[in-house]
């Protein structure tokens, strides 16, 4: 790698966590500088070299950690470099000094990098940067922050054609693509993929309950495993307990404390909605080895400095083998140490997932990170940034933007739409006289209004903070944030778990919820939206293969053998589907008619399929269906019989007209509106300001739904609307994956069974309370029905 670096090559270093990627990348520029400056007597810390290295880190919370681990080798070698960070958390005085002279090496975030591009005065210094190193590239890849980084890199490459770009990444299924996006199409021919230390050993085991229920237990997310987990924690000095959602983190922390009250103060919890002071305290506790265990979410997936926890416990399926491997890598953080991961299933089928994940890891079929294609909202933001930072010529910038792989296919008309949008407010032929965000002066696009400049700088970035409200003690210290929709539903006096404590709501005022400590039992746990990952397509496929193996009686490994009883019942009442079969089970009970389908394609694909099936069924017959989905299948429920066989015969599963039918199904508009929130924010329609800061002007507040409606009504060709529809199809419904799944189903065999009772496969769907109703009733009819149901219930109550 160092030789490649010296020769001016770019590349990507990948390996498991904790194998020294950071140091490998960092020594490249250091070794080169030492070779150029062999005379140590001339090294003068008072006159550090000018900017050479930009180090991009995905989380500003990691900047401090990164800085200290990068500083070590500098100090050891006595290198006179100035090393500093520049993030949203940096002091204003430091930032001001940096605007005059940047340090030799600067650690920064994608947002701060974009922000630097809006300062024309910095461009002369940025021109001389020798290398950009992007840490945790796998985290940024395939996200809008990744796109933002890519555009900034394209800009830096334009400033310095000899720029080296190196990425550090966990191992992915699509490393070639990851490299292309990082270094751009031009450079990729000479770029290198360097595999880091790979012989990291790992040991996976699962904690099996003493009896496997016939039915996958669900609901109380397996907290019955708490004693077993506590026993495992007891065996080691330090443990990370990963859960899949923030709510589960709160619950597991409480349950562990109830199991072992003596651990108060020795265990902690960590998730993204906690205040940064709380998180820092936990991170320091881990570093100093003062904490026995930390219950956490993916918030601790990243981080350079959690050297060697002894073991990792994963509660619930990680839904992807790459993630499982990465989390395992959080333990045994030296190249030769053994990673220990204990898996705690929260339902029986998850044991099959673990078995499947182990297969996938052994075979090396890790998940690919799907890429985004030319999101225009990010481009709009970038174009305004460049217009502020010195201005641009339209043709030059188009070439530069197209040099980024994600915008290779940007068309002339898309480009001119973007320019129109920032110059005239839209491609609608009318030019608005009072709108001039970006102005054109002799062919040069610039921003002149100070208000536009400062607003834009304040709103750079692509992270949408959800309508989050701070949760504070009456005395004023902040615990963290929860969603406004959750807090708004609470009444004063109601108790909930938050940040590992039981608190009660006192009042809500000025966008903060004030709480005090409470005693007794919690009424509720906050739900934070998002965070539930669907089963990856690679793991879905491995899961189908495991079930096929089981159907032929082959049970390999402890996990699969433990499930023998459950498989026996499934086979007695129905079947275990093979890879080329789609199992459909029909059951009628007092709640109505149920049809279960098992494509095993992950929750998002199933949600899209359920909406699609409901729409296609309703085309044949007016109905109200309710549905539920999980990673394995779908249930459709109706008060009347569902004519599934005739629906299949007339093309229920057809892959043709897929997009049209999804978009016509009732939920698509609602989903597009939700997706539009982020787009509106990134494209600068919604002024977010700093989190917690007072909004600039109440006169220009409008939520994204209003923007969506205004555009849909008065500017229907606005490309941002089209983008939100596309993002819904690709990311919320995974339409491409859905089409592939439907084709697979079409090629295969359908097996319809009428089991005597709810089968083990169906059971988790029956108990899943996250139901969505899809109805072809009109809104007015629906309200009328709800009203009458309400009255009926009240009548029954009276009699």
């Amino acid at each position, binding site marked *: 790698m160092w030789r490649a670096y010296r020769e001016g090559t770019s590349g990507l270093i990948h390996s498991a966590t904790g194998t020294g990627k950071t140091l490998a990348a960092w020594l490249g520029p250091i070794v080169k500088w030492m070779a150029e400056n062999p005379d140590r007597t001339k090294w003068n810390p008072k006159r550090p070299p000018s900017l050479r290295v930009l180090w991009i880190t995905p989380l500003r919370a990691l900047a401090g950690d990164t800085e200290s681990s990068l500083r070590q080798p500098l100090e050891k070698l006595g290198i006179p470099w100035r090393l500093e960070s520049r993030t949203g958390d940096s002091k204003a005085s430091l930032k001001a000094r940096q605007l005059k002279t940047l340090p030799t090496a600067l650690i920064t975030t994608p947002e701060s990098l974009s922000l630097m591009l809006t300062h024309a005065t910095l461009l002369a210094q940025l021109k001389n940067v020798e290398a950009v190193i992007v840490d945790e590239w796998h985290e940024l890849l395939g996200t809008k922050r990744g796109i933002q980084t890519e555009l900034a890199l394209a800009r830096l490459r334009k400033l310095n054609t000899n720029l080296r770009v190196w990425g550090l990444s966990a191992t992915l299924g699509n490393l070639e693509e990851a490299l292309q996006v990082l270094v751009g199409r031009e450079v990729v021919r000479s770029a290198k993929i360097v595999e880091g230390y790979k012989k990291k050993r790992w040991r996976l085991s699962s904690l099996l309950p003493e009896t496997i229920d016939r039915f996958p237990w669900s609901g109380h997310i397996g907290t019955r495993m708490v004693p077993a987990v506590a026993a495992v924690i007891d065996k080691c000095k330090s443990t990370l307990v990963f859960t899949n959602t923030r709510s589960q983190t709160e619950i597991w922390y409480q349950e562990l404390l109830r199991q072992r009250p003596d651990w108060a103060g020795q265990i902690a919890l960590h998730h993204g909605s906690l205040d940064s002071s709380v998180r820092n305290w936990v991170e320091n506790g881990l570093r100093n080895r003062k904490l026995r265990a930390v219950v956490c979410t993916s918030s601790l997936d990243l981080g350079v400095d959690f050297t060697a926890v002894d073991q990792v416990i994963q509660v619930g399926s990680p839904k992807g083998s790459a993630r499982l491997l990465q989390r395992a890598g959080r333990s045994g953080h030296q190249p030769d140490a053994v990673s220990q991961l204990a898996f705690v299933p929260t339902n029986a089928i998850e044991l099959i997932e673990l078995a499947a994940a182990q297969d996938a890891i052994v075979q090396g079929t890790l998940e690919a990170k799907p890429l985004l294609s030319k999101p225009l909202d990010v481009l709009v933001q970038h174009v305004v940034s460049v217009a502020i930072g010195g201005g641009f010529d339209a043709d030059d910038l188009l070439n530069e933007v197209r040099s980024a792989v994600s915008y290779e296919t940007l068309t002339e008309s898309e480009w001119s739409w973007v320019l129109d*949008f920032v110059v005239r407010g839209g491609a609608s032929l009318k030019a608005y006289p*009072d709108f001039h965000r970006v102005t054109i002066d002799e062919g040069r696009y610039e921003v002149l209004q100070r208000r536009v400049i400062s607003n834009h700088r304040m709103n750079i970035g692509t992270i949408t903070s959800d309508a989050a409200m701070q949760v504070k003690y009456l005395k004023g210290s902040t615990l963290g944030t929860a969603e406004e929709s959750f807090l708004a539903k609470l009444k004063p006096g109601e108790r909930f778990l938050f940040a590992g404590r039981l608190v009660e709501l006192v009042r809500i005022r000025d966008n903060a919820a004030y709480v005090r400590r409470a005693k007794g039992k919690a009424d509720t746990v906050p739900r934070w939206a998002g965070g539930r990952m669907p089963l990856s397509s690679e793991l879905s496929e491995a899961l189908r293969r495991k079930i096929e193996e089981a159907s032929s009686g082959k049970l390999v490994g402890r996990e699969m053998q433990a499930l023998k009883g459950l498989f026996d019942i499934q086979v007695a009442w129905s079947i275990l589907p093979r890879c080329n079969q789609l199992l459909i089970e029909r059951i009628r009970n007092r709640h109505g008619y149920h049809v279960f389908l098992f494509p095993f394609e992950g929750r998002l694909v199933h949600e899209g399929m359920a909406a699609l099936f409901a729409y296609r069924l309703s085309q044949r017959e007016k109905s109200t269906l309710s549905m539920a989905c999980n990673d394995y299948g779908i249930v459709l429920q109706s008060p009347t019989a569902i004519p599934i066989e005739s629906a299949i015969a007339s093309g229920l599963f057809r892959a043709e007209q897929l997009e049209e039918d999804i978009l016509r199904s009732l939920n698509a508009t609602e989903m597009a509106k939700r997706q539009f929130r982020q787009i509106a924010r990134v494209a600068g329609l919604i002024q977010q300001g700093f989190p917690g800061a007072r909004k600039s002007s109440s006169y220009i507040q409008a939520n994204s739904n209003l923007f969506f409606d205004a555009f849909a009504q008065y500017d229907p060709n606005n490309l941002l609307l089209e983008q939100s529809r596309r993002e819904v199809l690709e990311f919320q419904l995974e339409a491409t994956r859905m089409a592939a799944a439907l084709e697979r189903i079409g090629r295969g065999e359908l097996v319809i069974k009428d089991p005597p009772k709810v089968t083990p496969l169906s059971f988790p769907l029956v108990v899943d309370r996250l139901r969505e109703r899809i109805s072809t009733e009109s809104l007015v009819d629906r*309200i*009328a029905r709800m009203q009458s149901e*309400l009255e009926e219930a009240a009548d029954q109550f009276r009699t």
Partner: protein
Amino acid sequence: MSYLDVEIEGRVLQLMAERGVYVPAAETLLVADTHFGKEATFRNHQIPVPSGSTAATLGVISTMLRTTRAKRLVFLGDLFHATCSRSADVMQSLDEFFAAFQQVEISLTLGNHDRRLGKLPVNWSLNVTRQMELGDIQLAHEPQSLDAGVCLLCCGHLHPAVRVDRGSDRTGKLPCFWLTERQLILPAIGNFTGTQLVHPRKSDRVWVCAEGQVVAVV
């Protein structure tokens, strides 16, 4: 054009699906929170929003005036969104509106957004007041305690909306008429205005506007 006749405090009012209230006894149409030119305000702050919503709002009011044959129209406050809302196209739409309805007596009860209303074009015959009375119905922008001798207050300001909820089935936010303590709060009529969820009490009455109809909800 669909409406619902309701009896409140012994008076019959027509709640219109287009979010206005017609008082037949006084031949008067009430609309609240027009926020004309809000989209122009955004453009003035360099946030691109297409025009069209002001004209659309005026179109809805015109239709209601024609179908009810109202002799009077009262804007219950927040006529314009802000001072910079008066862009050329917004003012032109309003000019046309006032010209078309010269025979209608038009009033405005001042709202919080009207504080810097300033001078209006002389050819607009708009009667501006803090509050007014329509027989024993009091008209104002914000909810407030009732004056002596009146039986009902009609006002706006809150942009009220509710969700209809039944088990797992829950609608989105629906703009509503909300009657609480002899105050009838009208939904905002402005095409580019938001709504705010309100939490009616058991003794209150609520009617939602959905798909061109007014529906009473419990």
